[in-house]
């Protein structure tokens, strides 16, 4: 394994070749905020929260999919990036209907946490208040499109870890949304194994256990990495 040396926020960082800037930064103790990224799933750079500046490149790059290279000079917290991150969070809040006080994930929501981190005390963009449905056709789980930020963690975990591929992202622009099967009610999709991993990794209250009331969704998405390590260990065992 060869090593690449790069600079992140003025710090020299040694990283394995093939690692991403996000991984290198986290090893070096530099916090880059993320939402769609989750250890154990393939990165997709959907949320744009981890954008960083790379010297010599006019474009901002998402740290979660940018590989490290020798001599890379990365800035993760410039005023420009801070402004963009706050705007990204404001876009997410104003684009859907995120009513924290009546949400199952209130107090345990990654979107709510990121809003604090980026310093959002209000949204400078107008709220859209879109009319969106809630799918309660599954016997155990619900999908509230009002709270969905289209991070696609559910799509990836179902495909990559459970192997069922119930979820997809459909349509474009303001009509973009998560669909089950071929845009069917979730409860009618035979491929669903009822495993609940999508609920576990959802960063907001979009996917939830039926019966959970306000603030009662206490999932821990980092359990996914533990699950995968356990599976891996079992496969390697004699």
């Amino acid at each position, binding site marked *: 394994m060869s090593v690449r040396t790069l600079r992140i926020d003025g710090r020299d960082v040694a990283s394995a070749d093939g690692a991403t800037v996000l991984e290198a930064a986290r090893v070096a103790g530099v916090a880059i905020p993320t939402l769609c990224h989750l250890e154990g799933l393939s990165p997709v750079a959907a949320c744009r929260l981890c954008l960083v500046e790379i010297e010599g490149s006019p474009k901002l790059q998402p740290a979660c999919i940018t590989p490290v290279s020798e001599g890379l000079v990365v800035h993760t917290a410039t005023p420009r990036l801070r402004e963009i991150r706050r705007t990204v969070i404001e876009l997410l809040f104003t684009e859907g209907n995120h009513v*924290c*006080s009546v949400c199952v994930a209130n107090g345990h929501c990654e979107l709510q946490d990121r809003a604090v981190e980026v310093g959002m005390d*209000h*949204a400078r963009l107008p709220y859209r208040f879109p*009319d969106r449905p809630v799918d309660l056709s599954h016997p155990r789980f619900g999908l509230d499109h009002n709270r969905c930020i289209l991070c696609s963690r559910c799509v990836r975990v179902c495909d990559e870890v459970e192997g069922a591929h119930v979820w997809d992202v459909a349509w474009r622009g303001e009509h973009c949304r998560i669909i089950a099967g071929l845009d069917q009610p979730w409860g009618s999709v035979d491929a669903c194994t009822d495993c609940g991993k999508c609920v576990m990794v959802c960063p907001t209250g979009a996917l939830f256990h039926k019966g959970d009331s306000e603030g009662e969704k206490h999932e821990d998405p980092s359990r996914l990495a533990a699950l995968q390590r356990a599976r891996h260990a079992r496969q390697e065992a004699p």
Partner: protein
Amino acid sequence: MSQPAKLPKLRLATVWLAGCSGCHMSFLDLDEWLIELAPRIEMVFSPIASDTKTYPEDVDVALVEGGVGNSDNLALIHQVRQRTRLLVSFGDCAITANVPGLRNPLAGPAAVLDRSYLELADGSAQWPHAPGLVPELLERVLPVHELVPVDLFLPGCPPPAERIRAVLEALLRGEQPLMEGAEMIRFG
């Protein structure tokens, strides 16, 4: 009381628009600190601490709870803005429309009134209609800052009493409160 005569009292108002009054209840949760607060302010307008019906001139600080949801709210918020030096959006409804804003994705006030007063009525189903008494609903409930400039945002549903106190203490010292971190700006 031992209030120095020369120190001018902060002229404070609290305003209740489209909200549940929970932010005002949280204000009352300041408990014994209210006794410390009382000699340092003049409460010039408030649904919980004043009988004044007309919003006065020359207000230093107004805590505005609630979104702007009806014609009365709309008229009052413009008056508040004109007559107040520091307008505080007080709680999630004022800042995001929050729970009152849940009606916004519906097709306007008629759908809301039909659902509330006709479809769910036990008997004598009718829309409330008293021109000049019952204010008309606006098309949407809006956050305060989408209608008038806001000077400070105090989130929370409701904002915890300690958060309110931190803001008021800073303002009483003549400082701008530092609104950052989960203690001060977490929604919900």
